[in-house]
């Protein structure tokens, strides 16, 4: 099958060329800032921001050293959010993430010491290294946006955004996230190696850390919440909802995948597509938006039956897009 056409249009399309009244300059500025530091990764950056705007969490599956930490850091910086990094290890316990109550001798009572999760942007590094118990502590916090420790429920800060990374290769000694847990990530993306030009610029350019440190927040957390609400208001016409539904129906029945997209996955698809449309300055979702984010939404949700396809998430998404005509 020839996927070239599809890929070309998903990846290289720039629907934003036409002027749009909804265009929000602050979002453009944010994207420009991040693109200045992480070079040649316009698409993953855009997806990450869309994920954040859609109030979802991001899963990055990639090799170490391609800039995952930098991405998380830069996002937090530009958006004016707190940032914490948690390195997951096999001996990590839920308390290491959530926090512990320690007996305070002076007051004679237990005092809760919040864990690293109590921050606005969390980078959960190598999440599949930790035991399922530790993983589920994080994932439950992600889902509920609150933490229950020692019988007390504590709300997590708003906005709350988790970027988790996991190693792509199947290694002995890892605990792959179960599918039900994977579903809690709105998007799964890969950063990949930079292209040669970008890599050269990276090598020749200034120190990334310094650049990050020099960044100034473009918006306040309050404004970010407003933007998140704007995303929810982006219009999805009946024709578009039909399209999402047809896509899901196709995955549910076609033999290419082991299971189809769940209703939650459809909602995720619609949510990210809305954010993508907003990033493009539109107040309504187009099929192009859905197609652009489809790969990220289905990458960790659809398991192809054919082994060869596993390594070609792009090809799988393109095949799905081409199989389903617009309603």
């Amino acid at each position, binding site marked *: 099958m020839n996927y070239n056409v599809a890929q070309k249009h998903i990846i290289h399309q720039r629907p934003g060329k036409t002027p749009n009244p909804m265009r929000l300059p602050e979002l453009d500025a944010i994207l420009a800032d991040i693109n200045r530091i992480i070079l040649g990764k316009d698409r993953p950056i855009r997806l990450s921001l869309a994920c954040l705007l859609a109030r979802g969490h991001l899963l990055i599956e990639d090799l170490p050293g391609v800039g995952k930490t930098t991405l998380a850091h830069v996002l937090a910086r530009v958006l004016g959010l707190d940032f914490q990094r948690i390195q997951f290890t*096999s*001996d990590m*316990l*839920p308390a290491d993430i959530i926090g512990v109550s320690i007996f305070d001798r002076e007051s004679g009572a237990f005092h809760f010491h919040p864990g690293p999760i109590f921050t606005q942007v969390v980078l959960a590094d190598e999440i599949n290294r930790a*035991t399922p*118990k530790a993983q589920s502590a994080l994932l439950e916090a992600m889902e509920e946006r609150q933490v229950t420790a020692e019988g007390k429920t504590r709300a997590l800060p708003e906005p709350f955004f988790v970027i988790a990374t996991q190693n792509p290769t199947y*290694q*002995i*000694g*890892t*605990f792959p996230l179960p599918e039900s847990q994977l579903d809690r990530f709105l998007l799964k993306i890969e950063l990949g190696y930079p292209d040669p030009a970008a890599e050269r610029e990276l090598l020749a350019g200034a120190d990334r850390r310094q650049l990050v440190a020099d960044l100034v927040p473009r918006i306040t957390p309050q404004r970010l919440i407003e933007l998140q609400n704007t995303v929810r208001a982006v219009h999805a016409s009946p024709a578009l909802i*039909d399209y999402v539904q*047809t896509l899901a*129906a*196709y995955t*549910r*029945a*076609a*033999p290419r*995948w*082991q299971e189809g997209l769940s209703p939650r996955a459809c909602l995720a698809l619609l949510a990210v597509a809305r954010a993508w449309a907003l990033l493009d300055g539109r107040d309504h979702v187009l099929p192009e938006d859905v197609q652009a984010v489809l790969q990220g939404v289905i990458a960790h949700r659809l398991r192809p*039956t054919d*082994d060869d396809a596993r390594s070609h998430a792009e090809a799988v998404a393109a095949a799905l897009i081409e199989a389903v005509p617009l309603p």
Partner: protein
Amino acid sequence: MLASLRRRLHEIFVRWALRVRPPEPAPIVLTQRRVYVLPTRAGLAYGAALGVMLLGAMNYNLSLGYALVFLLAGLGIVAILHTFRNLVLLSIRPGRCEPVFAGSVAQFGLLLESQRPDARTSLRLFFDEAVPIEVDIGPHACTATTLGVHAAKRGWLPMPRFTIETTWPLGLIRAWSYAVPELNCLVYPTPAAKAPPLPWSSDSARGSARDGRGADDFSGLRKHQVADAPRHVAWKAVARQQDGPLLTKLFSGAAAQQLWLDWAALPDTIDTEQRLSILARWILDADAAGLAWGLRLPAVRLAPDNGPAQRSAGLHALALYSHGAH
């Protein structure tokens, strides 16, 4: 004699009716030209009853009798249209089809898609002579259904021709069509009921190494399994979480013992199918025990691993094993 003639005529009709050389490319759209309509037995009885009623109306000069007969005749015509419409322009796509073991029933998934703004009701799908499956399809909806057929032999089982018919709404008229979607079911060899024990290689005599993993370098933790040696339990990690499961320390090393399911290891007296059966049984046993295993066939070699992917890869190889590969 008569029955066989009828069957042959039916076969000729079906072949003419299908027109396309099966299997057909997806999606199969049941166009007007491939949907056939004939009265059912009830429909014939209905027609005969109308004839008798017409005679009665004529004989007694019953104007209302004429009107009734003509109304019912119109109803019959309308029923033709409704029945036809219930089936026509339905599109059929091949759906999913999970591999099965020979001797069980292969379930061919079908995806029935209706572009119509109102529902399609009581469509029956069946293979020749088999019990039909009844499905409804909502407006603009897509319904998945499966049709089972007995899988006798290992290998690829192409989906046989099936009939889709409907007598809705009045049961007087039957509209039907045939389709052969391009869908194949992988049939694994039947696992042997009696098989020799798993063929451990002769140098893996130590029972403690039977988990198929090494014992040299710590490489991680995983959930404790009954077969794990007690000395590999990660007591420290277990102690940290009060009610967690037992964890086993994993070690990797060159010395790890591996289970090879080898075609050649079986005595020559066993014929091909029997061998494949035994290998299938071994794969199931090894998989159930959570062991890592490798497979050696005359032309195929599968590196040791465990998990569902390994299991399906192994069975896949067995299913498609051919004599020519010797």
